[in-house]
């Protein structure tokens, strides 16, 4: 019996080693695409399409030329600025306003609030193409086609998922706490921000992560609404080879891809645990 156990253990140990090697090779494979882009960002623009997997040689090495071209000459820093501003501002606005709305329509029982809840949830399944044309035209007419105005659109589009997630958690908060606060003289606004919102904090982090990933990477809405004047990172990247941004330079494109990935990787490495947790709970809810 004892002998058999060691045989089994040896077998599993060997299996574990094989699996480890397998997974290790798979993760290298997963990193190859990013490594190739990084590699090519240091090569001259004519050598990128010719031999994308070759390491830079003294002939093909371009130093930081691509970064200088891609960033300084084509003004990519501006694109990064717009992306940062729009993402941060939209996410803050979404969190503050939709949590209030979600709490209100969950606590106040009326036909209007329950209808609103269903309309918000319904909006989650509607693909953007359905409203694309009209939304863009309305944004033009209302003159919200600028980096500040687009926040209103992000609030509108983001509210479905945010309210759905927030409402689910508000339902789990015992109403007695809120009633006690109100009896003590808090008005609903004080009750919400002093009592309810602190309880909702973990949920707010989940919502913030999901919305950050969406707004930061969103292409179509900023391209159509503000793309002519204000290019966010995805819009700028898309414009390089099609000629609407920069100078159709493969080298600049590589540098931009690297710079587009860097903030995401930093964001990911800092908040990995909550990001994965947030994404899972967002998926399970949605």
């Amino acid at each position, binding site marked *: 019996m004892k002998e058999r156990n060691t045989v089994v253990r040896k077998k599993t140990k060997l299996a*574990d080693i094989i*699996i480890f090697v*397998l*997974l290790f090779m798979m*993760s290298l494979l*997963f990193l190859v*695409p990013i490594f190739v*882009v990084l590699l090519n960002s240091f090569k001259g623009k004519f050598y990128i*399409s010719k*031999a*994308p*997997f070759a390491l830079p040689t003294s002939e093909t090495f371009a130093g930081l030329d691509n970064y200088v071209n891609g960033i300084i000459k084509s003004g990519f820093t501006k694109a990064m600025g717009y992306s940062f501003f729009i993402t941060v501002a939209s996410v803050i606005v979404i969190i503050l*306003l*939709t949590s*209030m*709305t979600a709490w*209100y329509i969950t*606590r106040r*029982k009326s036909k209007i609030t329950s209808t609103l809840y269903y309309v918000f949830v319904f909006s989650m*399944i*509607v*693909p953007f*193409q*359905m*409203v*694309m*044309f*009209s*939304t863009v035209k*309305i*944004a033009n007419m209302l003159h919200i086609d600028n980096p500040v105005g687009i926040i*209103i659109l992000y*609030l*509108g589009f983001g*509210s479905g998922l945010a309210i759905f997630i927030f409402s689910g958690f508000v339902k789990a908060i015992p109403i007695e706490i809120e009633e006690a606060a*109100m009896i003590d003289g808090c*008005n*609903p*606004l004080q009750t919400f921000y002093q009592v309810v919102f602190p309880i909702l904090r973990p949920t707010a982090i989940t919502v913030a992560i999901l919305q950050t990933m969406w707004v*930061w990477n969103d*292409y*179509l809405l900023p391209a159509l609404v503000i793309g002519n004047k204000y290019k966010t*990172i*995805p819009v700028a*990247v*898309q414009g390089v*080879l099609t000629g609407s941004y920069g100078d159709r330079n493969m080298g600049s*494109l*590589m540098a931009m891809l690297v710079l*587009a*990935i860097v903030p*995401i990787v930093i*964001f*990911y490495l800092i908040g*990995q645990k909550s*990001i*994965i947790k947030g*994404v*899972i709970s967002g998926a*399970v809810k949605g």
Partner: protein
Amino acid sequence: MQKTLKKYFIIFVIPTLLAFAIAFIIPFIMGVYLSFAKFTNVTNPTWVGLDNYIKLFTINNDFIKALWFTVKFTLVSVVTVNVIAFIFAKLLTRGIRGTNLFRTVFFMPNLIGGIVLGYIWQILINGILLNFGVTLTFDAKYGFWGLIFLMNWQMIGYMMVIYIAGLQNIPGELLEAASMDGASSWQMLRKVTLPLIASSITICTFLTLSNSFKLFDQNLALTGGAPQRQTTMLALDIYDTFYGRTGYQGVGQAKAVIFFVIVGLIAFIQLRISRSREVEG
């Protein structure tokens, strides 16, 4: 409490509702109306009845071709993403050294946006095809499999973490008991593990299904539909119809309505399946 709340509707609901109306409610209603109209701007529609819906099938078969390409792509990516993600999840729940690092690496591509992903893979695939003297847009099959690879790279890690969460919820005693009773590992997988993570399977299947079906950014950046619109998916076809040439906005809107109905149907089926499971459980 209800009475006090009543007065606060304006503060709590109106700001969100206003933005929601501008971004979604009004455009949605207009969108349905405009699909029955001829227009170049939202201010000049004339009612044409079902004209756009008829034109959509009669002018050319772009829409049908895009629909077929999208369906093929969706089926292949749902199967590949979920099978691979499940295998990864299974391997990462054995307590092997380095599990956290592997999970970190596999999940990372999920955070990168579609446009950036599309260009990364364009360079990569063109680099490989260079050895065969062709490019990504030489033949539709390259674009198709390119999209599959891209989608797998992006979605596997995401589905994997959901499967991991599901697998970790299975009580260890259950598997132990099954193994004591002499169940083979294949039997354990089929009779114990898979039924117990059924809800994870539903979630992952529908997430990949709707993400694949609605794919736009990656499609635009990887091939842009080339060659000859043969790798155009539905969302890109709708976009091209709207903004490609003037006079066809109505047809574009009609396509968008059909697109919405299909996506809505998928969501509805998912809701029914998960509801019935909750009742059973």
